[in-house]
């Protein structure tokens, strides 16, 4: 029984199928429902943003010019690296290297924290320059989208905490839960890339 239980992750990682040949999604399939719903909700926000932008293109362009693209790129890179480290966490946990998996989970937390600090500093800078939530429609969207994403990221720390809790003790180590937590983290990374493209890059 123990052998089977420990052999299954290798099987799944190598073939994308369980031992009985059935295809699987990483983590709990239930988490993918959240991924789907959150993607739909954010798609609504993005659609409203793009529609409002087409109504006042000049205002949005002028306000967008006040954002610091380099900070946006930095934040994006930080989150992408955090996604890489959480993927490494899943991979090493599958291989049974739990010490490395734990380190990668902590590394993901570190990059997530770096993103949060960078985001707060960016907000402070914008507010000091006189661009607040109510300055104009672009900045309303800017603060709204980045803040709701910020909130999702904070929840991501709870999921990372669950992953660490699972990996730490040999009595737990549910690979499924570790993958579930990583799926959530990848989702908030994916959503950030879209927010970055819409707020900072799209002209």
């Amino acid at each position, binding site marked *: 029984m123990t052998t089977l239980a420990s052999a299954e992750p290798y099987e799944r990682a190598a073939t994308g199928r369980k031992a009985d040949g059935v295809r699987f999604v990483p983590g709990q399939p239930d988490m993918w429902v*959240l991924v789907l719903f*959150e993607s739909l909700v954010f798609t609504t926000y993005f659609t*409203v943003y793009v529609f409002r932008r087409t109504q006042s293109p000049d205002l949005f362009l002028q306000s967008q010019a006040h954002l610091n693209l380099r900070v946006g790129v930095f934040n994006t890179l930080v989150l992408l690296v955090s996604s890489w480290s959480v993927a490494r966490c899943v991979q090493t946990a599958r291989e049974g290297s739990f010490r490395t998996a734990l380190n990668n989970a902590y590394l993901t937390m570190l990059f997530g924290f770096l993103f949060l600090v960078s985001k707060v500093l960016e907000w402070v800078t914008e507010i000091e320059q006189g661009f607040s939530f109510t300055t104009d429609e672009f900045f*309303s969207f800017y603060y709204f989208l980045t803040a*709701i994403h910020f909130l999702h990221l904070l*929840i991501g720390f709870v999921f990372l905490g669950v992953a660490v809790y699972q990996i730490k003790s040999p009595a737990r180590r549910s690979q499924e839960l570790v993958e579930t937590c990583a799926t959530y983290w990848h989702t908030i990374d994916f959503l950030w890339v879209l927010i970055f493209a819409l707020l900072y890059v799209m002209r």
Partner: protein
Amino acid sequence: MSAATTGAAPEVPSGSLLRKIVWHWRYDEKRELWIGWWTLVVFYNLYGLLFFVIARTQPPPKPSLTAPEIVQWFHDRHYGLLYGYAIVSIVGGATAIMNATLAYTMRRMSVSRAFAYSYLVIYALATLPGMLIMGVACTVGAMRPDRNPALMSWLYDFAFLSFEGTMGVFLIGSLVWMVAVLLDRNRVFPKWFGYLNLCNALTEVVVAPAWIFKRGVFAWDGGIAWWTNMAVFVTYTTVFLTLLRKMILREDFGTGPLPELQSDHPPEPGTREAA
């Protein structure tokens, strides 16, 4: 153990709906749960009818209306507000049965009773700003439409901000339910419903800007603060009503995991159950 299965109750009668209802009323051991479920279904339908059709306070009007426009708004809905909210006042108490039914699901889980208790308290509070205070404010405005327009504007803002004020209650209520579902080992609800609670909770947060904006997508009638939130809430409500019905069907009044419905897991061909 059901009275029907022990032989103490007669078979469910075939034929008229009335006879079936009478049978369930007399013999169904899940009678109270079904009353709770039907109260939920009737209440939400009635809520939609009263707020959207009779009182016409939903979808909400613009927060940017001027005082004369607000007076006109009350004038246009005079009878709808009076009769609509009179009925709301009568049926408002049904929320006690609804909340108790939802709290029952948490009592059936393997988690602490604190979840059910906190859910009960927080949703009991939601009834005040979300229904009764709003209803009273709208009725006061409609009752004497010749009042000072400044007072009418005050009532108008008070009514709709009170309605928006339920967001925090729904936020925490959804999170309580989410944690209970995710921790539960009795499989009362599927885990994805726990995650759906998280999605619902997060869309309650986006209502917050309605306290700041009078125009645009973040105002209380806006595309994000109202329409997106309402779309998610309707989906969420439909899902939990469906899952609650299924949970009642599965209920065995035990303390362990709920059995699955036979229709969800048909027996393998060739087994005794299949035969």
